[in-house]
């Protein structure tokens, strides 16, 4: 992979430029520009944190399902199993695994989001 610049740096440079011109835009476009900058920030995080998050998810799902596989296959099998009632909230390790996966994903999609259960002390 080319490193000068790296992909995430290209994305970051566009995001910073959008932030720079935002004040010159009309209210509607200023809002959409903020959304666009947020989208690029998500892309940037996905490039840097995504591979590790996916590898971790693969490990967690494999442990619940009892065999190895790629992300898509394990995810599909888990969905089918939950729908069929094979895996429930009582299944040992399932909720713990899903909680880790959810935390990793929200860290990429929306790191400022404070999920249910966040205490007052850490939310102010």
């Amino acid at each position, binding site marked *: 992979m080319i490193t000068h610049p790296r992909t995430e740096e290209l994305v970051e440079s566009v995001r910073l430029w959008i932030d720079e011109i935002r004040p010159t835009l009309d209210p509607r476009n200023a809002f959409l520009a903020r959304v666009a900058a947020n989208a690029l920030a998500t892309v940037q995080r996905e490039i840097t944190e995504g591979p590790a998050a996916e590898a971790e998810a693969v490990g967690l799902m494999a442990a619940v399902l009892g065999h190895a596989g790629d992300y898509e296959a394990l995810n599909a099998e888990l969905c089918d199993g939950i729908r069929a009632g094979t895996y*429930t909230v009582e299944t040992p390790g399932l909720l713990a695994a899903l909680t880790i996966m*959810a935390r990793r994903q929200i860290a990429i999609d929306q790191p400022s989001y404070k999920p249910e259960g966040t205490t007052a002390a850490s*939310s102010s």
Partner: protein
Amino acid sequence: MEVDVRAGLQKLAARLGGQGATLAEAGRLSGGASMETWAFTIEGPAGTERLILRHRSAPFDEETARSVSLATEAALIRATGANGARVPIVRHVCDEADGLGEAYVMVRADGETLGKKIVSDPRFDAVRPQLARQCGESLVAIHKTPPPPGLKLKAVDGVAELDRYEEVYRATGARRPILELAFQYLRKHVPPRVEPTLLHGDFRNGNIMFDPGKGVVAVLDWELAHIGDPAEDMGWICTNSWRFGRPDRPVGGFGDYADLLAGYADAGGRPIELSRVRFWQMLGSLRWGVMCLTMYLSWRDGITKSVERPMIGRRVSETEADLVVLLEEGL
């Protein structure tokens, strides 16, 4: 269906304000894909009137839509208002002669609707501890209003809502284990049936106008009104996606469950168990997750090209982060 709203408001000024009345100012406040809100002022012999126009800007089919017609919305606001609910005052329901299509006019009220401000602006510090109780009280007058005869209101219960959103979820083709688990869990925990009532249907922080001194001014945005379990309106305002960064305050990011429930019971509402509210709250997170998926799809399928839509698709994970905690805690 292009309607010249400004021209329509000019005509309306004469109709509402009397001989010689003019449109002093008009500006669009917000516009979704299908609905526009305008603020306008009429000056006439009877004085100055500050008004709001709700106007539909895209075709609408009441049979298939989830939302109600604007005429129904206006009728519900009038009926609940007459029953003591804190709602806007409907000034006029538009007809053919107005040339504005489907629309109605409300008296403009003063107050704050931005959820984030209610939750964190120091101006609301003093009144904030009262708000959850007031929300409970406000719901009683709405839930106790007999639906005006002749309106087409859909009836929904927990099972129907789960069926509906599971069907939508399956149709998206997305595979999300946490949403799957939430569907299965909620199906096993549907609360026993209660006498259904009129519901606001979108009762959350962001759709309620608050005043820093008095608290609840008016319950707005009635387009999702329907008949169902009164706990549904309570669960939705407790859904974490509408707590604006204060998950530690379950009611709208400003109050506690106990105050909401006590406000409801003390105002004469049939007492509601917390577990029932929590069922609808969890279903609220699940529903919002599925809605986020469909907003992404509306972009993918070319129905709307706004950059906002795919980004809302990435909000599914916020509902998943909430759902895993609720599943762990139980109802």
